[in-house]
């Protein structure tokens, strides 16, 4: 791999990561065997920094992790960059929060075991800054991992008197449509009703030969 390409890969990763990347994380972008050594990565970062000179972006190193950020001179304009739609948490963040709510007190390792994938520090940091979760202790196992639980702020935000107000898991597992309260669910319900009416109507037209009237049995194959 040419230096040029290495620099571009590092550049691309820093632009989309959404969080600072350590040299380890940068090295993990590469296939085993094709992984550049730390010297090469540092070289690529230095190259990148030089290439960015004069542009609106700069490379910053915070606590051994690297990130790209726009230069401070651009702040006046970027402050006027209004969000069109409200920001959103990632799926991973919501899953982590839900697991902490139901499984507390719980360690990061336990969350990862349930989710089947790593939980980034960024996610936990976000939830702590939001004051929805907090560290409630440390588990007495080697390494003494932190135990996380939800806060009073979490209950207040979701308008719950206590965690016991959360729907029992059994309800969640059973019928996936259970407990829908979103507008989406309402729309679907409306659509379903409308459709029944439509089917009744189409039953009168002779060229209707598919079985959509039979409905739900198909859903098992349908995700």
């Amino acid at each position, binding site marked *: 791999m040419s230096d040029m390409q290495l620099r571009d890969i590092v550049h691309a990763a820093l632009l989309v990561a959404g969080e600072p990347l350590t040299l380890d994380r940068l090295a993990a972008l590469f296939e085993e065997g094709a992984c550049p050594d730390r010297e090469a990565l540092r070289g690529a970062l230095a190259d990148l920094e030089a290439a960015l000179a004069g542009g609106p972006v700069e490379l910053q190193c915070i606590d051994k992790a690297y990130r790209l950020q726009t230069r401070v001179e651009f702040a006046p304009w970027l402050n006027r960059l209004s969000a069109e739609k409200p920001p959103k948490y990632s799926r991973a963040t*919501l*899953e982590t929060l839900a697991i902490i709510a139901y499984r507390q007190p719980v360690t990061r390792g336990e969350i990862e075991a349930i989710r*089947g994938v790593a939980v980034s520090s960024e996610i936990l940091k976000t939830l702590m800054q939001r004051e929805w979760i907090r560290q409630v202790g440390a588990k007495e196992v080697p390494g003494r991992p932190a135990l996380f*639980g*939800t806060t009073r702020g979490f209950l207040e935000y*979701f308008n719950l008197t206590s*965690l016991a107000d959360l729907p029992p898991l059994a309800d*969640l597992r059973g019928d996936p449509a259970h407990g829908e309260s979103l507008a989406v669910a309402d729309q679907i319900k409306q659509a379903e009703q409308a459709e029944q009416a439509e089917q009744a109507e189409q039953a009168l037209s002779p060229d209707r030969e598919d079985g959509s009237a039979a409905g739900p049995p*198909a859903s098992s*194959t349908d995700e």
Partner: protein
Amino acid sequence: MSAVFVRGEPLTEMPADLYIPPDALEVILEAFAGPLDLLLYLIRRDNLDILDIPIAEVTRQYMSYVEVMKAVKLELAAEYLVMAAVLAEIKSRMLLPQPVAEGAEEEDPRAELVRRLLEYEQYRAALERLDARPRMGRDLWVTNIPAEGRDQNRPLPEVSLEQLLDALRSVLVRADAFAHHRILREPLSVRERMTRILDMVRPDGFTDFGDLFDVTEGRRGVVVTFLAVLELVRESLISLVQNEAFAPIHVLSCA
């Protein structure tokens, strides 16, 4: 896979192209998105002319697949059976002598089915093209870097309880795929109580065991607290100390 019956006859042979391990069979059958998909597969596989479908042969093959699906107890969509009836009807209409209609052009009994198959195939191809397009989060990513010096008071994301439960639901679905995970078994109230007890038990001293209980919560509350204490002890998060029989029990944080 020992006793598979097709129209009352034991099925000794799989349909010609089904020389596949039995485990994979279900996967393959599930791969059909519906009766039209299955029919198209049969037609294209044998290079049949879709505009002149040999209806008897296609019906026979279609039925053998449907019987296999039933036999492996695949939850069969009713639409598959409806299609079977449609095929049978077309077959019988083709066997009947053509009624001599005055001047009217007799429509091929297969015409409607062919129209539907062609239309469906068009969308199926469209789906493949769509599927092959570069996608966000898989093939490309949108840049997202912080702006140094930007005001920090950006709006925070809003989350509804439904979104939270939905996230959990998808975790559960995923976790079900790995059955070995023992997840979320304890009743919620116990887990909540565990957090509360950890709060009460200060790391630098003894807490009276009795203080953990709130009698106003009644029997259930006391039981929940007791279960929470046991669970915390089991997980080595707290320990209980009693100097002699009937002496006060003290709770120690292990943290």
